[in-house]
């Protein structure tokens, strides 16, 4: 019963964040536009050769997800900082981890939606057809995104309330994401060419390990991060 009430609070935060976003779409539109720009610019930098673009596609896709997605996290907290809603949020009864669960769910859904637009776009720009192992590719996207968004949600809770938050968030977040970037890029790259060496499995396991460790650790540290 008590746990259901706590989940209800997390659900309320998810509902509130999505309702606000659905109404303005300001965040979504600018992040998607940024993602499109990054995809185009990597294309310009890499040159128009189809073969070269195809081999770079996995890496470019993940960099696009990270560089555009990072813009969403601070803004997700901006909602709470306008009118000092955060103080009120912290005064509701109940456990603090529910705040993290709600914010995490909202950010995850947001980045997944951005990916729904970005990935087909990347496929078109970089001449990648729908891979035979598309199920596994979606699995890698899911695991990579969970790791990315989990840490993004924790670090933005600090960065959004510090001075120089625009610089601080990527400075804190990106070094932590090196394993995600490597594992997700390698696994995606292998799966796009039907995983001839059978490498994808171990990268997927690494991603899963990363996710488990940091989801647990984030739920543990977040209450100390969000208060005051």
């Amino acid at each position, binding site marked *: 019963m008590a746990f259901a009430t706590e989940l209800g609070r997390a659900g309320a935060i998810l509902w509130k964040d999505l309702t*606000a976003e659905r109404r303005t779409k300001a965040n979504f539109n600018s992040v998607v536009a940024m993602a499109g720009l990054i995809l185009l610019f990597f294309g310009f930098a890499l040159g128009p050769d189809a073969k070269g673009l195809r081999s770079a596609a996995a890496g470019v896709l993940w960099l696009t997800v990270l560089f555009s997605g990072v813009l969403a996290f601070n803004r997700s907290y901006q909602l709470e900082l306008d*009118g000092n*809603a955060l*103080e*009120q949020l912290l005064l509701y009864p109940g456990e603090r981890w529910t705040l993290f669960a709600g914010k995490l769910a909202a950010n995850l859904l947001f980045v997944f939606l951005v990916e729904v637009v970005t990935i087909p776009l990347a496929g078109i720009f970089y001449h990648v057809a729908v891979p035979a192992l598309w199920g596994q590719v979606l699995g890698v996207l899911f695991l990579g995104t969970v790791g990315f968004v989990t840490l993004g949600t924790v670090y933005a809770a600090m960065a959004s309330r510090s001075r120089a938050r625009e610089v601080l968030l990527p400075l804190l977040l990106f070094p932590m994401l090196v394993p995600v970037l490597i594992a997700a890029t390698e696994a995606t790259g292998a799966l796009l060419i039907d995983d001839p060496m059978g490498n994808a499995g171990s990268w997927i396991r690494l991603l899963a390990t990363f996710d488990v460790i940091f989801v647990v650790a984030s739920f543990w540290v977040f209450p100390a991060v969000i208060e005051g």
Partner: protein
Amino acid sequence: MRPANESSSAVALIGVAQRFGHRWAIRGVSLDVSAGEVVAIVGHNGSGKSTLLRIVATALRPTRGSAHVLGLDVTRDAARLRERVALLTHDVALYGDLTAEENLRFAARMLGQRPSRVQLEAVLDQVGLRAVADERARTFSSGMQRRLSIARIFLRTPDVLLLDEPFNSLDADGVALVSDLVRQTRARGATVLLVAHDLQRGAIAADRVVAMAEGRFVEDAAGATAPVLGEPVPESPDVLV
């Protein structure tokens, strides 16, 4: 364990000090408020009165001293206290892109309630916002936003009600609304701590007025406020001291 008077009083502060970075907002304050009492804390901007309220509300951990509310420690028992203490924050704490009804629904869900549309409309009616229930809070005047944040208080029946500048940007009707809220809260035996920079309005409905300056209580508080308390205030003559 604890002195007897601590558990019997609604709010018991002993030597409380609060620091922000290198600035001391409160510098050793002790206060004892009985259950059912209405205390107004008045003072200029930066006198530390809002900080004091936020400590009682568990929004801040006091840097020094001990603070008990309803016999519970504000740091150790914060989670349990939040069930029984409500704070009307200084800022309206609204989500501009949500409608009035949605803002209120969110607050209700965070309190573990599942109100129907009709119930929420009834609360909005109490604060005079029923007609604009489906308009975004961003489009509201500051007085309307204040009313909406007051509506959140109407969702609960706290044992300790904390009001931070509740009269800000309110018209005469709004002031009456807050006075009624204070009167009703007192009538059911709950405690009210209210902060105001405006002595006149702060003194409305208060049993006792405490003045703060530079993070301390001012000794001649009672004397300074006596004439104000003596004046009849039409909105709530029955609770004047």
